[in-house]
């Protein structure tokens, strides 16, 4: 029986689609059978981030409206044996599907897949309601900025109200140099404010831009972000993975302090 995960944030541009692509690909690399669903109808993006934009025939709305079978709309990612994408429709809007239809779709995919990952649109309107309808758990993405954290708080409240029991936080685009000089909230600060469990911290890494340029998720590669995303994938599987040392240069003193903080 597969698990349905919604990747959401409230605020736009904080890394939902990138996270969906990388965590999904990471889980597929860990031998799980994964389907990524782009629920952002009208503004589809997951296909280009995954590099699968040229292979779309049918989309989410076609499936929901019964124009095709689910299998026909799923795009198999040839780079990984267990990874599939259900793209969104570009020429429709959020009202083309209902939360009930999304829940039914997710439930139908549970038999076939280990993980069904929903890439949620920004905002708290219909698109958000569609994306969370069938979800068992949520990954809330934020960056260490006041606007993103505020929206994340609102989203966490809405997830609770919709009885999504397991919500984990990902702090994206952290710059350890800025944190160190006191000009950026740390992941610890964000966790303290939002009071939800952390599942990962992604450093601000220019390799992310390169990877989306190329349409190849960088999870598992020898980059800081690639490692951080792989760690999140492992933590989703329930593994206890220690957090990365994000700052390159660190003195003995701060290392000791970090060690003490962790224990």
């Amino acid at each position, binding site marked *: 029986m597969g698990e349905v995960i919604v990747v959401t944030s409230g605020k736009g541009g904080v890394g939902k689609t990138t996270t969906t692509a990388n965590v999904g690909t990471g889980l597929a690399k860990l031998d799980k059978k994964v389907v990524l669903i782009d629920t952002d109808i009208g503004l589809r993006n997951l296909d280009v981030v995954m590099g699968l934009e040229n292979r779309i025939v049918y989309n989410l709305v076609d499936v929901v409206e019964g124009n095709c079978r689910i299998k026909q709309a799923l795009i198999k990612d040839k780079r990984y044996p267990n990874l599939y994408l259900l793209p969104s429709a570009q020429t429709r809007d959020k009202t083309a599907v209902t939360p009930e239809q999304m829940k039914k779709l997710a439930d139908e995919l549970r038999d076939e897949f280990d993980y069904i990952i929903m890439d949620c649109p920004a905002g708290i309107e219909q698109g958000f309601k569609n994306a969370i309808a069938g979800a068992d758990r949520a990954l809330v993405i934020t960056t260490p900025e*006041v606007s993103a954290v505020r929206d994340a708080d609102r989203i966490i*409240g809405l997830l609770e109200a919709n009885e999504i029991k397991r919500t984990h936080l990902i702090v994206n685009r952290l710059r350890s140099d800025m944190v160190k000089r006191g000009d950026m909230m*740390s992941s610890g600060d964000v966790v303290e404010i939002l009071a939800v469990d952390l599942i990962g911290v992604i450093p601000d890494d220019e390799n992310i831009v390169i990877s989306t340029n190329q349409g190849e998720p960088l999870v598992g590669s020898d980059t800081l972000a690639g490692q951080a995303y792989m760690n999140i994938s492992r933590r989703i599987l329930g593994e206890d993975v220690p957090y990365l040392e994000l700052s390159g240069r660190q003195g003995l003193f701060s290392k000791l302090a970090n060690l003490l903080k962790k224990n």
Partner: protein
Amino acid sequence: MSLADFFKKKTSSNVAKDRLKLVLVSDRAGCSPEIMEQIKNDIITVISRYIEIDMEGLDIKITQTQSEGNNGVVPALFANIPIKDLKTNKK
């Protein structure tokens, strides 16, 4: 920068944290600025019956405070109401 400055200086990340904590308290309480305005006006009406207050200097906000029990930090309604004249009512 002297050592004293170093300890006194409030970093921008701390400013962000403090601002967020405040804004989230009112967000979570679902208290819109209109409702706060109504509460403020009602408080003014009640207090004005007994004392003359400085309406310009009046400040009402929802903030956080350490609870007296062991519940950690709880939301609190904070009202700063400058009094102009206590004796108005004794006329």
